[in-house]
Protein backbone atom coordinates (compact mmCIF):
# COMPACT_ATOMS: atom_id res chain seq x y z
CA UNK A 1 0.00 0.00 0.00
CA UNK A 2 2.86 2.35 0.78
CA UNK A 3 4.64 4.14 -2.04
CA UNK A 4 8.42 3.89 -1.66
CA UNK A 5 10.89 5.35 -4.10
CA UNK A 6 14.65 5.90 -4.15
CA UNK A 7 15.46 8.18 -7.04
CA UNK A 8 17.86 10.81 -8.37
CA UNK A 9 15.17 13.17 -9.68
CA UNK A 10 13.23 15.63 -7.53
CA UNK A 11 9.72 14.80 -6.27
CA UNK A 12 6.53 16.81 -6.77
CA UNK A 13 5.06 17.38 -3.30
CA UNK A 14 1.63 18.43 -4.55
CA UNK A 15 1.39 15.42 -6.88
CA UNK A 16 2.38 13.06 -4.05
CA UNK A 17 -0.32 14.47 -1.76
CA UNK A 18 -2.84 14.16 -4.59
CA UNK A 19 -1.84 10.55 -5.33
CA UNK A 20 -2.07 9.59 -1.65
CA UNK A 21 -5.53 11.08 -1.12
CA UNK A 22 -7.18 10.66 -4.56
CA UNK A 23 -10.74 9.36 -4.24
CA UNK A 24 -10.41 8.88 -0.47
CA UNK A 25 -12.98 10.18 2.02
CA UNK A 26 -11.76 8.18 5.02
CA UNK A 27 -8.67 10.32 5.61
CA UNK A 28 -8.88 13.05 8.26
CA UNK A 29 -5.26 14.20 8.36
CA UNK A 30 -2.00 13.89 6.45
CA UNK A 31 1.33 14.51 8.14
CA UNK A 32 4.30 15.42 5.98
CA UNK A 33 8.00 16.09 6.34
CA UNK A 34 10.36 17.35 3.66
CA UNK A 35 14.11 17.42 4.30
CA UNK A 36 16.26 19.81 2.26
CA UNK A 37 19.99 20.50 1.73
CA UNK A 38 20.84 23.24 4.20
CA UNK A 39 23.73 25.65 3.68
CA UNK A 40 24.06 27.48 6.98
CA UNK A 41 26.12 30.68 7.18
CA UNK A 42 28.83 28.90 9.18
CA UNK A 43 29.45 25.68 7.30
CA UNK A 44 28.59 26.91 3.81
CA UNK A 45 27.60 23.52 2.42
CA UNK A 46 27.43 24.00 -1.34
CA UNK A 47 26.20 20.51 -2.19
CA UNK A 48 26.05 16.97 -0.93
CA UNK A 49 26.21 13.55 -2.51
CA UNK A 50 23.93 10.84 -1.20
CA UNK A 51 25.26 7.32 -1.58
CA UNK A 52 23.13 4.27 -0.79
CA UNK A 53 23.10 0.48 -0.89
CA UNK A 54 20.76 -0.19 -3.80
CA UNK A 55 20.03 -3.87 -3.09
CA UNK A 56 19.05 -3.04 0.50
CA UNK A 57 17.58 0.48 0.50
CA UNK A 58 13.99 -0.05 -0.58
CA UNK A 59 13.73 -3.16 1.56
CA UNK A 60 15.02 -1.28 4.62
CA UNK A 61 12.51 1.51 4.00
CA UNK A 62 9.72 -1.04 3.54
CA UNK A 63 10.51 -2.51 6.95
CA UNK A 64 10.41 0.93 8.57
CA UNK A 65 7.03 1.57 6.92
CA UNK A 66 5.75 -1.84 8.11
CA UNK A 67 6.79 -0.93 11.64
CA UNK A 68 4.87 2.36 11.37
CA UNK A 69 1.84 0.45 10.09
CA UNK A 70 2.04 -1.88 13.08
CA UNK A 71 2.09 1.06 15.48
CA UNK A 72 -0.55 3.31 13.90
CA UNK A 73 -3.62 2.72 11.75
CA UNK A 74 -2.35 4.37 8.62
CA UNK A 75 -4.51 4.88 5.56
CA UNK A 76 -1.57 5.53 3.28
CA UNK A 77 2.10 6.30 3.38
CA UNK A 78 4.72 7.69 0.98
CA UNK A 79 8.51 7.72 1.40
CA UNK A 80 10.70 9.16 -1.34
CA UNK A 81 14.45 9.54 -0.81
CA UNK A 82 16.75 11.07 -3.35
CA UNK A 83 20.31 9.90 -4.07
CA UNK A 84 23.16 11.39 -6.06
CA UNK A 85 24.47 14.95 -5.98
CA UNK A 86 22.13 17.62 -4.57
CA UNK A 87 22.87 21.33 -4.24
CA UNK A 88 21.91 23.68 -1.40
CA UNK A 89 18.16 24.20 -1.16
CA UNK A 90 17.24 21.01 -3.00
CA UNK A 91 14.81 18.44 -1.61
CA UNK A 92 16.31 15.27 -0.11
CA UNK A 93 13.44 13.30 1.40
CA UNK A 94 9.64 13.30 1.52
CA UNK A 95 7.52 11.47 4.10
CA UNK A 96 3.71 11.43 4.02
CA UNK A 97 1.44 9.57 6.45
CA UNK A 98 -2.34 9.63 6.22
CA UNK A 99 -4.73 8.58 8.99
CA UNK A 100 -8.28 9.14 10.13
CA UNK A 101 -7.10 11.67 12.74
CA UNK A 102 -4.21 14.05 13.09
CA UNK A 103 -2.31 12.48 15.97
CA UNK A 104 -1.44 9.16 14.30
CA UNK A 105 -0.64 11.01 11.06
CA UNK A 106 1.77 13.38 12.84
CA UNK A 107 3.30 10.69 15.07
CA UNK A 108 3.86 8.31 12.15
CA UNK A 109 5.49 11.12 10.13
CA UNK A 110 7.95 11.88 12.94
CA UNK A 111 8.62 8.17 13.50
CA UNK A 112 9.28 7.54 9.81
CA UNK A 113 11.83 10.33 9.45
CA UNK A 114 13.52 9.44 12.76
CA UNK A 115 13.93 5.82 11.71
CA UNK A 116 14.93 6.69 8.13
CA UNK A 117 17.79 8.73 9.58
CA UNK A 118 19.14 5.81 11.59
CA UNK A 119 17.97 2.58 9.90
CA UNK A 120 18.11 3.10 6.14
CA UNK A 121 21.42 2.68 4.26
CA UNK A 122 22.14 6.23 3.05
CA UNK A 123 25.34 8.21 3.54
CA UNK A 124 25.86 11.92 2.95
CA UNK A 125 29.08 13.51 1.79
CA UNK A 126 29.06 17.28 2.13
CA UNK A 127 30.95 19.60 -0.22
CA UNK A 128 31.95 22.99 1.18
CA UNK A 129 32.36 26.28 -0.65
CA UNK A 130 36.16 26.01 -0.29
CA UNK A 131 36.21 22.69 -2.15
CA UNK A 132 36.64 20.41 0.87
CA UNK A 133 34.36 17.38 1.18
CA UNK A 134 33.62 15.25 4.23
CA UNK A 135 31.34 12.38 5.14
CA UNK A 136 28.63 13.51 7.53
CA UNK A 137 28.98 11.82 10.91
CA UNK A 138 26.01 10.15 12.51
CA UNK A 139 24.57 12.26 15.32
CA UNK A 140 23.91 10.88 18.78
CA UNK A 141 20.79 13.08 18.75
CA UNK A 142 19.44 11.10 15.80
CA UNK A 143 19.96 7.80 17.62
CA UNK A 144 18.19 9.25 20.65
CA UNK A 145 15.31 10.46 18.48
CA UNK A 146 14.94 7.04 16.87
CA UNK A 147 15.11 5.30 20.25
CA UNK A 148 12.17 7.34 21.61
CA UNK A 149 9.72 5.23 19.64
Amino acid sequence: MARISVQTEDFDIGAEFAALTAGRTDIGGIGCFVGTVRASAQDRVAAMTLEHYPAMTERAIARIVEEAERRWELLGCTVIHRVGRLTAGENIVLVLAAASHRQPALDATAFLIDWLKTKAPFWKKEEFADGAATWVEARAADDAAAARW
Partner: protein
Amino acid sequence: MADAATPLTILYFAWLRERTGTSQECVTLPADVRTVGALIAWLAERSPGHASAFANRRTVRCAVNQDFADPATPVGPGDEVAFFPPVTGG
Protein backbone atom coordinates in the same frame (compact mmCIF):
# COMPACT_ATOMS: atom_id res chain seq x y z
CA MET B 1 23.44 -24.56 -0.51
CA ALA B 2 26.66 -23.04 -1.75
CA ASP B 3 29.74 -25.22 -1.16
CA ALA B 4 32.77 -24.03 0.79
CA ALA B 5 34.56 -22.86 -2.36
CA THR B 6 31.75 -20.45 -3.33
CA PRO B 7 33.03 -16.92 -2.81
CA LEU B 8 31.42 -14.21 -0.65
CA THR B 9 30.68 -10.83 -2.12
CA ILE B 10 31.96 -7.97 0.04
CA LEU B 11 30.58 -4.45 -0.53
CA TYR B 12 31.98 -1.21 0.87
CA PHE B 13 30.16 2.11 1.12
CA ALA B 14 31.06 5.74 1.92
CA TRP B 15 34.48 6.13 3.56
CA LEU B 16 34.98 2.38 3.83
CA ARG B 17 34.80 2.30 0.03
CA GLU B 18 37.27 5.18 -0.19
CA ARG B 19 39.73 3.66 2.31
CA THR B 20 39.68 0.14 0.89
CA GLY B 21 39.78 1.60 -2.63
CA THR B 22 37.05 -0.79 -3.77
CA SER B 23 33.29 -0.90 -3.82
CA GLN B 24 33.05 -4.67 -4.26
CA GLU B 25 35.31 -7.68 -3.99
CA CYS B 26 34.82 -11.45 -4.05
CA VAL B 27 36.64 -13.51 -1.46
CA THR B 28 36.87 -17.19 -0.61
CA LEU B 29 36.89 -17.65 3.15
CA PRO B 30 39.28 -19.76 5.19
CA ALA B 31 37.33 -22.44 7.04
CA ASP B 32 37.76 -20.75 10.43
CA VAL B 33 36.08 -17.46 9.37
CA ARG B 34 32.44 -18.01 10.23
CA THR B 35 31.18 -14.70 11.70
CA VAL B 36 31.15 -11.01 10.80
CA GLY B 37 33.67 -10.35 13.58
CA ALA B 38 36.10 -12.95 12.23
CA LEU B 39 35.55 -11.68 8.69
CA ILE B 40 36.50 -8.14 9.71
CA ALA B 41 39.69 -9.35 11.37
CA TRP B 42 40.57 -11.34 8.27
CA LEU B 43 39.73 -8.53 5.79
CA ALA B 44 41.74 -5.98 7.81
CA GLU B 45 44.89 -7.96 6.89
CA ARG B 46 44.34 -7.66 3.14
CA SER B 47 45.92 -4.24 2.57
CA PRO B 48 46.87 -1.04 4.38
CA GLY B 49 43.62 0.44 2.99
CA HIS B 50 41.59 -2.38 4.51
CA ALA B 51 43.45 -1.96 7.80
CA SER B 52 42.60 1.74 7.77
CA ALA B 53 38.93 1.09 6.93
CA PHE B 54 38.54 -1.32 9.85
CA ALA B 55 40.85 0.51 12.28
CA ASN B 56 38.02 1.78 14.47
CA ARG B 57 35.45 -0.98 14.55
CA ARG B 58 32.99 1.05 16.59
CA THR B 59 32.36 3.18 13.50
CA VAL B 60 31.82 0.23 11.15
CA ARG B 61 28.35 -1.18 10.53
CA CYS B 62 27.51 -4.35 8.61
CA ALA B 63 24.69 -6.00 6.71
CA VAL B 64 24.59 -9.68 5.72
CA ASN B 65 22.35 -10.43 2.75
CA GLN B 66 20.82 -6.94 3.08
CA ASP B 67 19.90 -7.27 6.75
CA PHE B 68 21.68 -5.36 9.48
CA ALA B 69 24.13 -7.63 11.25
CA ASP B 70 26.51 -7.58 14.21
CA PRO B 71 29.90 -9.20 14.94
CA ALA B 72 28.24 -12.46 15.99
CA THR B 73 26.18 -12.84 12.81
CA PRO B 74 27.24 -15.96 10.85
CA VAL B 75 28.68 -15.56 7.35
CA GLY B 76 29.35 -18.25 4.80
CA PRO B 77 29.88 -19.03 1.14
CA GLY B 78 27.56 -17.15 -1.22
CA ASP B 79 26.61 -14.42 1.25
CA GLU B 80 26.62 -10.73 0.37
CA VAL B 81 28.30 -8.83 3.21
CA ALA B 82 28.31 -5.02 3.22
CA PHE B 83 30.40 -2.72 5.41
CA PHE B 84 29.60 0.95 5.92
CA PRO B 85 29.63 3.78 8.48
CA PRO B 86 26.58 4.60 10.64
CA VAL B 87 23.87 5.80 8.26
CA THR B 88 23.22 9.51 7.72
CA GLY B 89 20.30 9.80 5.31
CA GLY B 90 16.95 11.47 5.82
